[in-house]
């Protein structure tokens, strides 16, 4: 990473995450995390007790945070002529886009990853029966502190944040307006949630949902992990087709929107 990129990223972080944005995102994260369906000792299945409710509960947070952070970073900076000021310095449009995008993406993943970690700690505290030791069965168990499954959740979370970030960047650059881009984003995300909610679990299109899709990715990877480790069969109902629909939608969608956003900024006339 060049010195200019580091400087631009630090500029972006200082500007986009200054008071009260970081504080607000953290506060909403904590409130959302507290509304979790807490794990009962007798019902310690990580997928049904932790993963599924996590995505349902946290989608609102991911969506709003990505909308605000990326909407401000791109839409508002064009609207309020901050982008024009930045482009007057010896930095390229590509450099500005990449530094803004990745600074905010890493910050979002860090904040939400911390929330996930906090959830893991809470799960551990609520499962006193599990003897926690480096080589204990907890590592391979189905119970709520199985670290590999938390790892899959983090992977899935990063993918959702990447997708929402790319989508919001695209909308902010296409509309050049903060408010309008947020409105379109929320209508799209929650409209899609409503529509996919009407579909059955067996339909691949149902996994375009930003809550059901990541949960399916975690379930499929967990089952594959158990199978590979020789720990037995885990019945999740997620086939490879459903898993790949969810994965490809998020990954290819995120990459495509990222590239289109970069091209939009590079070709944009700023007046």
């Amino acid at each position, binding site marked *: 990473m060049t010195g200019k990129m580091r400087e631009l990223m630090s500029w972006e972080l200082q500007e986009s995450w200054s008071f009260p944005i970081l504080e607000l995102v953290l506060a909403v994260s904590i409130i959302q995390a507290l509304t979790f369906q807490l794990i009962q000792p007798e019902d310690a299945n990580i997928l049904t007790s932790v993963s599924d409710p996590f995505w349902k509960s946290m989608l609102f947070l991911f969506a709003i945070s990505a909308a605000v952070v990326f909407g401000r970073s791109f839409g508002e900076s064009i609207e309020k*002529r901050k982008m024009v*000021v930045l*482009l007057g310095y*010896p930095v390229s449009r590509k450099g500005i886009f990449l530094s803004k995008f990745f600074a905010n993406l890493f910050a979002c993943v860090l904040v939400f990853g911390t929330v996930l970690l906090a959830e893991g700690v809470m799960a551990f505290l609520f499962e006193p029966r599990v003897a926690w030791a480096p080589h204990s069965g907890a590592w391979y168990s189905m119970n709520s502190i199985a670290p590999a499954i938390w790892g899959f959740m983090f992977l899935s979370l990063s993918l959702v944040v990447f997708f929402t970030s790319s989508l919001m960047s695209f909308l902010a650059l296409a509309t050049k307006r903060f408010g309008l881009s947020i409105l379109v984003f929320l209508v799209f995300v929650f409209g899609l949630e409503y529509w996919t909610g009407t579909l059955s679990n067996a339909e691949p299109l149902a996994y375009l949902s930003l809550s059901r899709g990541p949960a399916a990715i975690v379930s499929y990877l967990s089952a594959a992990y158990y199978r590979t480790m020789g720990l037995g069969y885990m019945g999740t109902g997620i086939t490879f087709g459903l898993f790949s629909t969810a994965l490809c939608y998020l990954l290819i969608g995120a990459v495509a929107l990222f590239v289109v956003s970069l091209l939009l900024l590079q070709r944009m006339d700023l*007046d």
Partner: protein
Amino acid sequence: MNRGVIEIEKATKRFGKITALSDLSVVIDGKVNGLIGPNGAGKTTLLNVLLGLTRLDSGKARVLGLDVNGELSEIKKKVGFLPESPGFPTSFTGEGFLIKVARLRHIQEPRKRASEILNVVGLSHAGKRAIRTYSSGMYQRLGLAQAIIGDPELIVLDEPAANLDPIGRMDVLRVIDEYSKNRGVSFLLSTHILYEVEKSCDWVGLMEGGRVRESGSIDELIQKSSKQVFRIVVSDPKLFELRLKQSGFAESVEFDGDAVVAEFPEGFDVYGEVVALAKRLSVRVIDLRRVRLSLDDVFRRVLKAD
């Protein structure tokens, strides 16, 4: 085409149905250059083209001998820019912002440089304050500071005195004067305030409808427009004004106090014909002299002619 600070050749830029720049060709070669013109004349679009913010539909633009299309990064290293209504990061302190700009411009000792520049623009007392607490005048001074911090060869200022009180305006002119005379920096200003232009510019471009209608030094522009404008004091100004209008000698006739101010066509024998007309009307000519117009008059006349 001559080599100038800025060279534009057959530049056209359209935004939908609006033509912002229309086949514009101009060489800007003064030390302090001013673009004046009404709203929508294309001044800001022209400045944006020079900084690569807006791309031309056709034509070429060169800044300090560098092509805007292929050598933009080199241009940005040599040019300081203050856009119209700039957006600065309001959560930063003034000093913190300038330090970051200095780092982006690879300036040695950015803290020291930021502190020096705050002093130059008269903001040293407010360097530690968040930009959000600045008044609009302080904000504009900060804009000037970020434009000059990199010791550029050319400084482009779009409405530099906007939001400034008279003292603030004088300070901007002082900085322009100091940097152009003592440091050899060239300037390109776009402004509505003709006083700023008259006070500081040695080259002026008068823009309208996406073109430069007139250009040159202020003296050249004024002399060119003043050539055939005369102030005539006669014993019966009302009668004389009426008959002068009826005669069709003058392109425009108007009162200025007790005198008649008239503009005659190129090559017209003003002294002979005016005196002859007065004689026919039995009116005594008390004073007849060429008028030196102000830049404001030139501006109005050029726009009126179109």
